[in-house]
């Protein structure tokens, strides 16, 4: 074929045009492109929501329901946004008296806990070795039968006192139901997990004769002197404190000065106007040093000390014997120089701080280490609280008061049968209330220690709202103590450490699925009663723990059953709230005025007692006068300084929950890169100290204490005192699931219990440690 130019061009053009037209006109191309776009946008199978119809996420009517958060003792009001029956968001509730619209990151993550795979799907019975995580589903009837059978058995053998219950709180109807159950059943062993409330309640009992814990008018104060309290880290009711902080930072008359005493640059220290780093464990000495200056320079409140305190001046009893008063003690023992030698803070700073504190209008000295998850030293607490008394800021606006609850209807006295009566009066497993620790209510860190010594023991343990297996100090001792308990029942909604090591799990409803009352949150100075309401229907085969405990009681029969006259938990709750129920159900909360009045104290002297007379009344023998007074009684950290040259202190991260609730994925996601990397937990150390041990940023190291060893990563920071290592609490879970389990180490596994000599509570603030490069 002969091809000339013309033909060629014709063919070429024709071909191109034909092909072009063909491609353009064939619907196949457009269809393919369209499909590719849609497929890559919507149809990708992984994006489709299993279980939910239609496109993701499903739409529907939006509603908002109010309830109260139960993830920490803070008790914030929350509003849950729902789309049809799905809860899609938790927000702070506007106008709620605790948190007025604010929320913390844990509270905002609540739905991950509600819908999370770590929920206990229904009653579980252990099927493998304990701690193997092997459980089998049983029915509620079988589960309750098991418990009833076991408890009947123990009671029949006269061992009712070998039953114990561990809860996160002793206030509110659910803890009260447990407490009532134990009393009717015949066990004295109601144990509340550790917190600074343990010591503060004791200190207030001793110094003010109050039964309650402490409440601070943080919003009203204008000088906040915090002795290591993690005000910003999540102390007390966290949102409330952060909101108070914002008030302190506002430009108007609410401006307050904040001084933080802490060996580490925590967020509280960073947000404070002044940060004074003292040697860990010497905070009490500093408080007394400040008292020295205040007394010496007569900066204290003369009216209050004269009219409403006892033991400020030296005094003599009816025999004429002279006793030392607080004034003499601080003047002789705690001069700025001697306190400087103890704390490492210069005398000049001590004097300046004391003056600033005493001269402020409404100063508050705040106590409770970190987030307040450890009990702490009694004398240290008293020393700090004495400062509040010195400036006369007790039971006043802008001051410190007791934390009252909204008055509710008391329940009828429990009528015990003979067994119950006998067993109930047996000594407690933790030694609280014994002749050695007559004034202490609970010794949550002590029971694993004494059990370990084979000193009696728990034969059946009920755990609700707490995760003692994880949160109790000295993890090895706790594990061993659990091994010795033949029957452990957990009521947890989540597969937490305790549930993981239980024999039976009788899961409670999640807090968004149940009714419950929320008494005044920790640290609040005004009575607030909040109400948890079911926002969503139960997602799993769970039951309200209140109903379960009443069913158990009723099954036990006799006087035990008689103690629970209510039909179900909600009836009990309604009756308890009484006439306020209508308002409570309508509003979601009720408030009261603080009943505490200035100058009224329940002590033997009727005054604020610097010199504690309650010790003698309780039959405790003190060797020296100063032991009746707030004084510096150093708590020595465990370990040989030669073998363990460094000091390890547990620290708390505000984005890491370290209590009974495991950190949800959202919160874990917010952790900084130098806090958690992969599964490695960082410990904080000063670069100077790190250099001594050849450690660089991000280095792998072995952290060893007399209690244990762990692999950690090293974070060099100028925010910590040389010679001190900080280890965050809250990681090292083995339970929950891959989003939390296996990450980091549990600080409690490295730290032991040092008992406070007077209270028996755990006064540990740190432990000696060694850090070696791997």
């Amino acid at each position, binding site marked *: *074929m002969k*091809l000339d130019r013309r033909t060629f061009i014709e063919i070429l053009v024709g071909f191109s045009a034909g092909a072009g037209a063909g491609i353009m006109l064939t619907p196949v191309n457009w269809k393919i492109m369209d499909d590719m*776009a849609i497929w*890559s946008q919507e149809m990708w199978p992984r994006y489709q929501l299993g279980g939910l119809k239609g496109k993701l996420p499903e739409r529907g009517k939006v509603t908002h329901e109010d309830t109260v958060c139960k993830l920490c003792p803070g008790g914030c009001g929350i509003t849950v946004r729902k789309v049809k029956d799905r809860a899609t968001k938790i927000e702070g509730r506007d106008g709620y008296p605790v948190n007025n619209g604010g929320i913390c990151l844990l509270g905002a993550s609540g739905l991950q806990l509600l819908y999370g795979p770590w929920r206990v799907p229904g009653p579980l019975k252990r099927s493998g070795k304990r701690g193997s995580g092997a459980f089998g589903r049983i029915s509620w009837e079988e589960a309750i039968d098991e418990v009833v059978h076991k408890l009947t058995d123990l009671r029949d053998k006269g061992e009712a006192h070998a039953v114990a219950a561990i809860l996160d709180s002793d206030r509110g109807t659910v803890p009260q139901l447990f407490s009532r159950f134990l009393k009717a059943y015949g066990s004295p062993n109601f144990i509340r997990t550790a917190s600074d409330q343990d010591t503060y309640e004791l200190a207030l009992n001793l110094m003010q004769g109050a039964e309650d814990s402490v409440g601070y008018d943080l919003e009203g104060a204008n000088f906040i002197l915090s002795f290591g309290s993690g005000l910003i880290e999540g102390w007390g009711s966290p949102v409330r404190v952060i909101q108070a902080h914002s008030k302190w930072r506002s430009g108007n008359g609410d401006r307050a000065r904040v001084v933080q005493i802490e060996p580490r640059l925590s967020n509280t220290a960073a947000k404070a106007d002044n940060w004074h780093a003292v040697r860990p464990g010497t905070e009490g000495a500093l408080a007394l040093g400040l008292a020295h200056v205040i007394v010496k320079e007569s900066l204290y409140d003369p009216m209050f000390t004269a009219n409403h305190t006892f033991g400020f001046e030296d005094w003599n009893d009816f025999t004429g014997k002279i006793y030392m008063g607080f004034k003499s003690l601080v003047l002789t023992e705690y001069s700025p120089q001697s306190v400087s030698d103890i704390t490492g803070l210069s005398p000049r700073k001590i004097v300046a701080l004391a003056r600033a504190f005493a001269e402020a209008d409404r100063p508050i000295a705040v106590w409770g280490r970190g987030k307040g998850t450890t009990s702490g030293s009694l004398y240290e607490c008293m020393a700090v609280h004495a400062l509040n008394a010195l400036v006369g800021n007790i039971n006043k606006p802008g001051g410190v008061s007791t934390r009252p609850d909204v008055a509710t209807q008391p329940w009828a006295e429990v009528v015990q049968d003979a067994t119950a009566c006998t067993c109930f009066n047996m000594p407690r497993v933790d030694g609280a209330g014994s002749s050695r620790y007559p004034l202490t209510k609970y010794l949550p860190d002590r029971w694993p220690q004494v059990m370990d010594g084979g000193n009696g023991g728990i034969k059946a343990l009920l755990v609700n709202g707490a995760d003692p297996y994880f949160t109790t100090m000295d993890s090895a001792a706790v594990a061993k103590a659990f091994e010795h308990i033949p029957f452990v029942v957990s009521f947890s909604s989540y597969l937490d450490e305790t549930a993981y090591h239980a024999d039976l799990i009788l899961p409670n409803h999640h807090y968004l699925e149940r009714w419950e009352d929320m008494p005044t949150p920790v640290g609040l100075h005004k009575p607030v009663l909040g109400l948890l309401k079911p926002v969503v229907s139960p997602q799993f085969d769970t039951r309200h723990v209140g109903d379960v405990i009443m069913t158990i009681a009723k099954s036990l029969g006799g006087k035990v059953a008689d103690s629970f006259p209510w039909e179900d938990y909600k009836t009990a709750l309604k009756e308890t709230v009484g006439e306020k129920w209508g308002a409570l159900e309508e509003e979601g909360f009720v408030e009261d005025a603080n009943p505490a009045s200035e100058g009224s104290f329940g002590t033997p002297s009727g005054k604020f007692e610097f010199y504690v007379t309650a010790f003698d009344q309780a039959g405790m023998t003190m060797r020296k006068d100063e032991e009746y007074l707030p004084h510096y009684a150093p708590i020595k950290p465990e370990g040989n300084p030669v073998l363990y040259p460094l000091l390890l202190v547990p620290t708390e991260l505000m984005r890491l929950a370290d209590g009974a609730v495991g950190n949800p994925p959202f919160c874990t996601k917010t952790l900084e890169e130098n806090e958690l990397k992969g599964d490695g937990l960082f410990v904080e150390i000063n670069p100077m100290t790190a250099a001594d041990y050849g450690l660089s940023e991000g280095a792998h190291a072995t952290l060893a204490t007399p209690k244990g060893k762990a692999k950690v990563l090293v974070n060099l920071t100028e925010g910590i005192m040389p010679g001190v290592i900080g280890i965050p609490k809250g990681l090292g879970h083995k339970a929950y699931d891959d989003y939390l389990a296996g990450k980091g180490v549990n600080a409690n596994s490295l730290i032991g219990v040092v008992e406070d000599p007077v209270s028996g509570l755990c006064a540990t603030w740190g432990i000696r440690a060694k850090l070696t490069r791997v």
Partner: protein
Amino acid sequence: MDSASLPFDQALFPEGTKRCKLKWFLLWIAALHGPLTVGAIAAVLCWGLALNVTNLNNNYPFGLWIAADLGVIALGAGAFFTGFLRYIVKIDELKNIVNFAVVIGVVCYAAAQGILGVDIGQPLRGWFIFWHANVHSMLTEVAFCITAYFMVLLIEYLPLVLENRQINKLGFFHGMAHHLHEAMPAIAAIGVFLSFFHQGSLGGVPGVLYGRPFAFREGFLVWPWTFFLFILSAIACGPCFTILITWITEKCTGKKLVKRNVFDILARISGRLLAVYLVLKTIDTIYWIALADKAGAPFSSFYANQPYGYWVLVLELGALGVIPMLILLGEKTRKNENLLILACVLNCSGIFMNRWIMTVQALAVPVMSFDKFVPYIPNWVEFASTLLFVWAGAIVISISYRYLPIFPQEKELNPQ
């Protein structure tokens, strides 16, 4: 020669040339499929498991792939620039290498598009760049020009295919090839136009990032200075890459394929352009330092994080810039084959390094004072999927060499 000892496929060879036995050829192609398969696996991993299989991250949205992309396109500039010199400047001697430059260009541009196909997160939506085009984006300009230019390259490549001894026997294809040859100056002109734009726009890609003081440049109208520098550096190194690949092909085949005077023309032009480039680049660098300093980003902060120390600047402009320039400018050094090849290697490395610096280092330098420097080293997936196109390119070149009349001087240089 005994016909039995001739390769099985010898009827397809270009007229008057000798090729190895088919089995050796197939073995060679098969050998190239080894690493190619690894690269293919890497690409499939990227598509199947998403880009988490790479070492890229939010600090390094651009990594080896983008640097390589910009690199191969610069290296592929040999095609349009040789075409420009041959058909428009009419340096006739270059007809002896222009075919091969086209083949190399096809490979480079195919590689660039292939790498992008792996690099983007949603390859199935890649065409959105045309569909939803944003005319303000340098990348849009690049995409349009590259696609159009790739078509031009294919049209330039087509006559070579048609001139295969057997295909050419068909009158239609023979004629078509002939007419395409006639149209080549026009096609080359289109190619030059498109290339100038996309080479420049690639320079614009980092140059317009005013949020990244390291990459940002002022410029002329909408074009930052990098626009012009990229064009210049591409045409300064493209010919060297053509020389380099030709030389490697010669080494592999054991034959001389192109006369040295052709190399010399390209090398000389390359050297001069490189000299111009280096002068302008030096001015740009000085101006850049002043600009950054004025805006508050001290020059030293750009080189504060290892491995990106000052050595980077010294290596890029000195060892990989001035040295090849001197070799290429000196007639004596240029005519020394070893030195010439060294210069080509340095020049091509220099362009790659420059593209890496303008993309990856530009992202490595923290901007906010509280940003942390994060190191980035590409992982095997990135390397393998990038190299995939090197192996594929080698296959295309091998087949093209074996069957297509690419080297007009081959017969003369290798008499039977």
